């Protein structure tokens, strides 16, 4: 993936404006082994690996669109399955999780604590759960690849996403 993809820079404006597409569908994308948040947190700590957390909602059309259009891209598949521990959270669900503090909370409550407004909302997190980047709304495959470059390339340690996009465009 290259950040010089045609149409790539323009697509970032969607991110930076946090334009939330009309909400929402769904479960995690088919063929992806998304874990529950607590399972993913445990593995992330054990393996010292970053997390990619997908906050979706049952019935979220934009989530379904992202699943069908973006997560089917082979390059996204390779990068995200290799670089992150993947977690999926249904932000309306009463399923319970155990947080690293030991607290038991529902998936809905986890969404509240992360200020999830629209779905999908994606978080890149450090292995200890610290948020690196929060992105809300529709993301294309190209955008997912760009975000991976920003996070896995550790550019977030020296630049904001906006600076990164400006530099790479």
């Amino acid at each position: 993936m290259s950040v010089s993809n045609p149409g790539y820079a323009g697509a970032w404006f969607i991110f930076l404006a946090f334009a939330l597409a009309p909400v929402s569908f769904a479960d995690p994308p088919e063929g992806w082994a998304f874990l529950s948040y607590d399972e993913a947190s445990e593995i992330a700590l054990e393996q010292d690996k970053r997390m990619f957390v997908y906050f979706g909602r049952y019935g979220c059309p934009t989530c379904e669109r992202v699943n069908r259009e973006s997560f089917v891209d082979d390059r996204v598949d390779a990068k995200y399955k290799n670089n992150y521990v993947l977690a999926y959270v249904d932000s309306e669900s009463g399923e319970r999780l155990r947080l690293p503090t030991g607290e038991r909370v529902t998936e809905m409550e986890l969404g509240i604590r992360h200020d999830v407004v629209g779905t999908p909302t994606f978080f890149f997190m450090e292995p200890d759960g610290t948020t690196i980047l929060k992105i809300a709304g529709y993301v294309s495959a190209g955008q997912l690849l760009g975000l991976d470059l920003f996070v896995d390339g550790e550019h977030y340690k020296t630049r904001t996403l906006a600076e990164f996009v400006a530099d790479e465009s």
Partner: protein
Amino acid sequence: MIRRLGAAFLSLPICAWSAPWSFDAPVEVVDRSLPPHFQHLEGAGRLHIAAGERSLAVVWEDDRDGSPQVYAAVKELAENAFEPDVKLSTGNEAFDPAVVALEGNRWIAAWEQNGEIWGSILDSSQVTLPARLSGGAARQVTLAADNGENVHAVWARVSNGAQVLEVAPLKVAANLLQVEAPVRVTPGADTHYQGYPAATFVGNGRLVVAWEDRRAGHTRLFSSWRKGRQPFSPEIQLNEHRAPATTDDFRGGTGVMRVTLARGQEDTVQAVWLDKRNPGSGYAVWGARSVDGGKSFSSNHKVQDELGDAIQQWHASVDHGRVGFVSTWDDARERWADESETADVWVSWQTESGWSGDESVPGASGAGYQGSPAMTIDREGDIHIVWIERDSRTSPGRLRYVRGVAEYRYR
């Protein structure tokens, strides 16, 4: 702060509102030293506090002993301190308690324990041994009491990954809690998801139930009713589902959850829930009212005021008192002015034109997190609110309580 600024600059009707209660100083529900731990007021119908003739009971879950367990505390209505709390649950883990008042300052509590529904009777001095209420795996229990006597439990039975609602009458016999055979609320196969029920009795022993349903590929709210032991009526949809404005084949809906119900005068019923029909601002408090005992409901109306529109609301519930229907919830609208205000408790009440402007609850607002409220109104019209207070949204917290004395009683 934002609320006050908004009220000053905009000539909105909220300028005229003044809460019809005078609030006491808030107190801790558990007034003794415990190691830092996490409390939760979560459950179907948000029935975490119930007022009897002279006393009220609060039920919650916390992990003070290292595992989530359900506790209760009782206080005299007129006093501002709780009796020592008692542990209700007896299993490895317990969650999502509900409580309703019986005649004679007693209460029935129910909760999820080890994946089943359990319940017990409590009064100001003792708790009966818990009884298992569900015949198998179940969760998300709520309760309804008719004049403090006729009590029904409603829960979601779990079967092969699906959930279906069941209703079971409860009986108090020789100070023991007994359960009759449960019945389904809706007919059909056990293949989809019904959850988070709310229930209330109206006149003539009619039970109204509302719930979340996911069979359509997104969540919708439905309601149904039955009189006595007759079969439930055909379900009707409560929320006005707005299909997304797409022309492709992406299915879905705008998101609704956690419906609560309250009975008003005569055959009036108010439903209140969280509704994401305006996606840019997240969930808001919406409702619908029935004037025919739950046989039909009005078109949906927004409960919160305009100053809450740009931010999302959580943990909404409804009850009824002398001022009419009253709703509480939490939101972080004042975080715009102060980043430390991660949630405050808000209240709105029925007016001639709809719902009042929103008022923050004294003692349940300000820096830090004050959220997840539950509320009841006693026979005198006083409002009783419990909530979770934390320094931050992720820190251990405290369970707090405040009473608002009805305006007519202090004028």
